[in-house]
């Protein structure tokens, strides 16, 4: 039940390895996007940002879902490692969220003339960002580890449930309130090479999530293992 220092180091090493592979994959995706995928006619070269931007949002959502799910499992099984994973996933998700929210506007402004659009992807990521921040703030405000684990799990579960409602309400808001159509990096039509690049990128970012979270989880395990060595 208490992690050993060796377990922790092994986990960190595995995490770093996966992260390195994934980063190489990101490089490959960039290559694919620039040279092996046709350019979308209307939006031009800038549209290719989409192949990094959308999968980041996906990774953020994945991170958040796992935070919520492992939180729920913690309440049921009370295994502290589930809570450590939940926390790791939240931190990683926060990073992906920040990536999406900063790259979106930075590329959007010069090309489409607007910093922000309330489209489904950006809006949902903004919500996830706030939920992550709330989750981390609550954790930091609680000192008892068992209480922190339980309360974080509650926030994680409720937050996860919120996601479909946010998505649905944004959809209803937009269909029932027609908005001006803004050009933004979006999934263009069916060209199979575009789909191939997109799917590859989703796979790479999933791997990147796994790498980050494994490393972060390993760091938590190491902290726990060291706690045993120093304390008792």
């Amino acid at each position: 039940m208490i992690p050993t220092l060796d377990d922790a180091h092994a986990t960190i090493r595995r995490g770093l390895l996966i992260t390195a592979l994934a980063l190489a994959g990101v490089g490959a995706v960039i290559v694919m996007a620039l040279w092996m995928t046709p350019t979308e006619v209307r939006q031009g070269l800038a549209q290719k940002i989409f192949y990094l931007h959308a999968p980041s949002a996906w990774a953020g959502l994945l991170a958040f879902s796992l935070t919520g799910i492992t939180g729920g499992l913690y309440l049921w099984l009370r295994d502290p490692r589930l809570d450590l994973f939940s926390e790791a996933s939240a931190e990683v998700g926060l990073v992906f969220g920040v990536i999406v929210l900063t790259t979106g506007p930075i590329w959007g402004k010069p090309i489409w003339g607007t910093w922000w659009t309330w489209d489904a992807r950006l809006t949902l990521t903004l919500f996830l960002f706030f939920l992550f921040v709330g989750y981390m703030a609550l954790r930091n405000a609680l000192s008892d580890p068992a209480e922190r684990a339980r309360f974080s799990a509650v926030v994680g579960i409720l937050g996860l449930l919120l996601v479909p409602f946010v998505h649905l309400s944004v959809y209803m808001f937009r269909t029932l309130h027609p908005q001006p159509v803004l050009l933004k990096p979006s999934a263009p039509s069916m060209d199979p090479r575009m789909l191939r690049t997109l799917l590859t990128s989703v796979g790479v970012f999933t791997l990147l999530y796994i790498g980050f979270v494994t490393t972060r989880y390993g760091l938590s395990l190491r902290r726990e293992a060291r706690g045993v060595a120093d304390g008792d």
Partner: protein
Amino acid sequence: MTTPPPATLPHLQARGIERRFGSARVLRGVDLTVRAGQLHVIAGPNGAGKTTLLRILAGLSRPSAGTVQVFGHGLREHPEHRREMGLLSHQSLLYDDLTPLENLTFAARLYDLPDPETAARAGLERVGLAHRADDPVRRLSRGMIQRVAIARALLHQPRIMLFDEPFTGLDAPSAARVLEVLRGQLAAGAALLVVTHNLAEVWPIASWVSVLVGGRWVIDEPRPDDREAFLTRLHEALGD
């Protein structure tokens, strides 16, 4: 001090209580038995786990391992047995904006006592506060607040009473009052558990003494007759 023959189930029994989270171990295998008419004292330095243990025994926390049984029933499986327990803490558990009567009536309703208001008035009579029944608790003196807290704790006639640092910050008359409650409850056949720094106060009426250090008993035995010798051993155990 003779222990009565264990003919019946003990009022309160804990076995193998552990409490840990990750690498932090607060309680490491604690056993405890309290029977009718016994007063079990738990002492120990701060941070040793006394409060955690008390909360587990009261059913307020769940242990990582081990069982707690009230008359042979686990509290989680049989929450109705909570009514056998009472708690007197250094905190009053009262609502300052309500009157003693309102506080006790509320407690009576919580415990589903027949005719709650009558029970509340009777409780106040017993502690001599019937004349202040309608003054918000906020306006009472500390001694009076303590008396209301005692009335509240005893209202549902619990057979197991837990005392959490009951003498902390009390003046002599208030401390004497607590001692009186302890004696009265023992005479009535209740099982008492007292967590305290203040061994001297309860020494004469204690049946069993346990000292918790680092989550384990370092002393766990019937209360000896020689207090001085015991205190010497206690200081050694605490490494003073």
